[in-house]
């Protein structure tokens, strides 16, 4: 039985919950750009809105967002499931409660397989199985009651699987085993003579008479049998007999314990996979409160150049300001290079962040913060932002920037996307522009999509002058009176960034 709500054909294994204190250990390797993405795109703001202080939801959301999908098919698979979730948030929450309940039961009743001797393993595992069976019945009931209300391929498969695998007959078989595994009337072992005539290959056998009175039937049979009753004071003998019993129970105890583990990991998988959707539900409810729109993006393949949207806003800014923020409408279809120039404090960084966030959200199957959104997937996403002066003083600022760029290049592949924010400005404009120009030209040649926020007129204009068909130039809008609209408009790079406006405002 597989959950398969994150991928149509494989498990999603975001975090390991092996230790009793539920320590969260990232399992999947995230792309090398992770720390930069988190910082530059203010990802934690988004993750907090999804997690609502639940550490597990936070981790799962983080892993899901940072391990982008490049398959349109899987993105659409998740989009459909997420649409179902947004339609039935209460049912999803009820299903999500099942694995939570399992974890709580284990915690509250000290349940678990802590023993190392087979009898102990068996009784611990049997107890867990009993508890799981109860929860699985709840899951089955939810499936019976609500399966029909779900439309996505993922949920239809999931519910069908539950109904088919966990039918009444199956529960009956399981319960019979749970009773037998107590071995109230004794155990039947088979054995052979090993080296030195020592008993070997002890195997627990299922009596040929399949009911509780098997032991009577065996004793009544005519085949020869020899019995020995221990002296009540023979403690050593009793211990040996217990050891022999353990030897026989060893593999069945293992089988029961592993079964318990399997169900446990099924419930864990259910929790992990639903956790992502729980986060999405939380976020959608939060944005709805702010009156912000969400849209399911239209996904184009990596080879295409699509970026057109209306009302795209910076979800992190909205969440931080706790209010509606300005959105942008841009059509950059068939463009590989987007250069953004213009007024300070004019919304350039915000815009760049909204591009990055929307891309990550789209590529993990989420909705995006926009009225409409259409973009191609990218192979990987990198951010290269101007950073604070290196506190360690080990390398100069420009050196540090080039160093970061170099490690990005190590990991770049065609159809990736790089977001530059005032990069290579830590030197004089001439040098910085030339380096930026060379880097960007090379990236474009390698089919990498580039968004570049810059004040460097020389750099921006060198591209503009070439009149490249696949480049587009956006400018932060500034009204003639100096006020900003925080909207971007298409337009030629200008030589001034209106820093004077700022100066005047602050010093004036």
């Amino acid at each position, binding site marked *: *039985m597989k959950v398969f709500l994150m991928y149509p054909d494989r*498990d999603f294994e975001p975090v390991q919950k092996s230790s009793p204190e539920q320590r969260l250990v990232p399992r999947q390797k995230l792309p090398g750009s992770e720390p930069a993405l988190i910082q530059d795109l203010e990802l934690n703001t988004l993750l907090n809105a999804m997690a609502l202080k639940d550490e597990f939801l936070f981790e799962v959301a983080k892993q899901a967002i940072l391990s982008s999908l490049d398959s349109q098919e899987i993105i659409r698979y998740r989009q459909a499931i997420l649409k179902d979730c947004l339609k039935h948030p209460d049912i999803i929450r009820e299903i999500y409660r099942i694995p939570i309940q399992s974890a709580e039961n284990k915690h509250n009743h000290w349940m678990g*397989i802590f023993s190392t001797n*087979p009898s102990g*393993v068996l009784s611990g*595992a049997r107890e867990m*199985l009993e508890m799981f069976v109860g929860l699985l019945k709840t899951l089955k009931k939810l499936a019976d009651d609500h399966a029909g209300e779900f439309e996505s391929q993922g949920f239809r498969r999931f519910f069908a699987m539950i109904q088919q*695998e966990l039918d009444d007959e199956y529960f009956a*078989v*399981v319960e019979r085993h749970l009773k037998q*595994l107590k071995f109230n*009337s*004794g*155990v*039947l*072992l*088979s*054995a*052979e*003579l090993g*080296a*030195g*005539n*020592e*008993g070997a290959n*002890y*195997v*627990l*056998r*299922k*009596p*040929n008479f399949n009911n509780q009175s098997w*032991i009577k039937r065996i004793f009544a049979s005519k085949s*020869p*049998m*020899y*019995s*020995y*009753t*221990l002296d009540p004071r023979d403690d*050593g*003998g009793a211990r*040996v007999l217990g*050891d*022999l019993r*353990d*030897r*026989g129970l060893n*593999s069945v105890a*293992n*089988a*029961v*314990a*592993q*079964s318990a*583990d*399997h*169900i446990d*990991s*099924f419930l864990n998988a259910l929790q992990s996979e639903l956790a992502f959707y729980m986060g999405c539900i939380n976020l959608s409810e939060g944005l709805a409160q702010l009156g912000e729109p969400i849209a399911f993006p239209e996904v184009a393949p990596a080879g295409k150049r699509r970026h057109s949207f209306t009302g795209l806003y910076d979800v992190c800014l909205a969440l931080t300001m706790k209010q509606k923020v300005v959105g942008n409408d841009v059509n950059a279809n068939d463009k590989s290079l987007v250069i953004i120039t213009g007024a300070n404090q004019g919304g350039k960084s915000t815009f760049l962040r909204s591009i990055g966030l929307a891309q990550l959200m789209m590529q993990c199957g989420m909705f995006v913060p926009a009225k409409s959104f259409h973009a191609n997937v990218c192979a990987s996403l990198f951010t290269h932002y101007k950073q604070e002066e290196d506190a360690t003083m080990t390398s100069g600022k420009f050196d540090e920037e080039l160093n970061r760029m170099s490690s990005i290049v190590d990991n770049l592949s065609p159809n990736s996307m790089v977001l530059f924010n005032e990069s290579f400005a830590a030197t004089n404009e001439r040098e910085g522009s030339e380096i930026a120009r060379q880097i960007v030209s090379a990236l474009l040649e390698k089919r990498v999509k580039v968004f570049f926020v810059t004040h460097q007129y020389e750099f921006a204009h060198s591209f503009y002058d070439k009149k490249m068909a696949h480049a587009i130039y956006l400018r932060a809008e500034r009204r003639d009176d100096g006020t900003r609209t925080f909207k971007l408009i298409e337009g030629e790079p200008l030589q001034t960034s209106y820093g004077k406006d700022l100066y005047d405002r602050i010093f004036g």
Partner: protein
Amino acid sequence: MMIFHSILFDKDVIQKETAEQPAFFTDLNLDQVIDAITAGKPEYNLKPFFHTPLRDVGTIQYRHEIMRDLEDATLMEHIKIFAEKMIIVRRYLGLAGKLDYHYHEEGWFLEAALVYCEAVTGLAQDLDAADLKSRGLIAFREYVKNYVHSHSFHTLLTETKKVKAGLSSVKYSVIIQIGRFSVRAYEGETDYSVEVEKTFEKFKQGAVKDYQAKLYKGSGMNHIEAQILEFVARLYPERFAALDQFCANHRQFVNETIRVFDREIQFYVSYLEFITDIELKGLAFCYPQVGESREVYDYDGFDIALAHSLLNTEKPVICNDFVLKEPERIIVVSGPNQGGKTTFARTFGQLHYLASLGLPVPGREARLFLFDQIFTHFEREEDISNLRGKLEDDLFRIHSIFTRVTSNSILILNEIFASTTLKDAVFLSKEIMAKVMELDVLCVCVTFMDELSAFSEKTISMVSTVLPENPAMRTFKIIRRPADGLAYALSLAEKHRLTYEQIKERIQS
């Protein structure tokens, strides 16, 4: 039945084993070497073999042949497999002797016989397939072949297999209740854990933990298990009667010649294993010519004890040559301290000793002298119990050597008379040297006294050297060269390619 004497001796007079290690062992660090060689094989008691040098060139030749055969990796592997099985045989027999319950004891006795038959038939087959050149192994192969085809071995083999087959096909059931158990024949009941697994298979996610307890079971039997075994014997009386009969018939099944071979062959195996690790460091071993010639030499020799101790380090082992031509007898080693002089002297002694055991020795090529005795004089800690001063003790010990040494001996003198004035030391040393020369004995003499090095035509001078670029750095190279206290100057000359040898080479004739 044919007779096979020994894989260690070609003649039927077998040299007596020596339990005590020779007196010079610690000075030459041979005690460490033999400890390392025999470590891990205490049950063979191999040290006496290594304490017994040969006096016969023919026997040395005999051992060389066997050693060369054993250099074949396949044969070596086969001998090791045989040895491992014989170890198991002994372990099982020892175990059986200590057991309390009749069928338990007989069970282990049967196991021992099974493994023994396997060991011997395997060995016979493996030797048969081997391309042997040595007289020793060829003769032994012949012996084993005859043995495995003998009636007694054949009977042992067939009966062992038959009895074991009867017992291992026994399958029974044990029903365990509280304070009570019952034994009866197994009646085809199904495996319950398989059924449980099948029931829960659908939940299988990924790999899960293995909960099988590691139930350690020593080879013991308690009264409960013994009781179960007794019940099983009652269920299958004929099979256990056959076991009784087998044990009565084959009380002593291990052949004496095989047993002795199993021990003696380890002399070769242990040494080959030991030198293989050293060879991996890029160091060479060779079969020396051994005989009465005093024109001894060894190229790229090294201290085998030092090489062994440096095995797990990055440090290189320095190799050195020596060559003695008539009438040369005495190597006087001088030069900077910590330059490898003592190591060189030890090497000389080790090489001769190992050669006398019929073993390959460190070096690319060697001719070594078959000595009657080795004497060493190394500096000792002052020993309060002998009530002698250090100089007195030195003289006392040297005197004791001279009462026993013959012209066929080998003498290693390391820093004699280091604890007196230079003048005294030179005087005493010259006296000793005169005696050594008179004896015509092979000798290595390590000294700080340059005066000794050009004593006569019988002495050659070798010096430890330094790096030309950095005279403080030792090379551990010992080179034949006059000792004139000019090691440093010579090094510089070397750097400029102006040594005697170099100039000779540079000037075209």
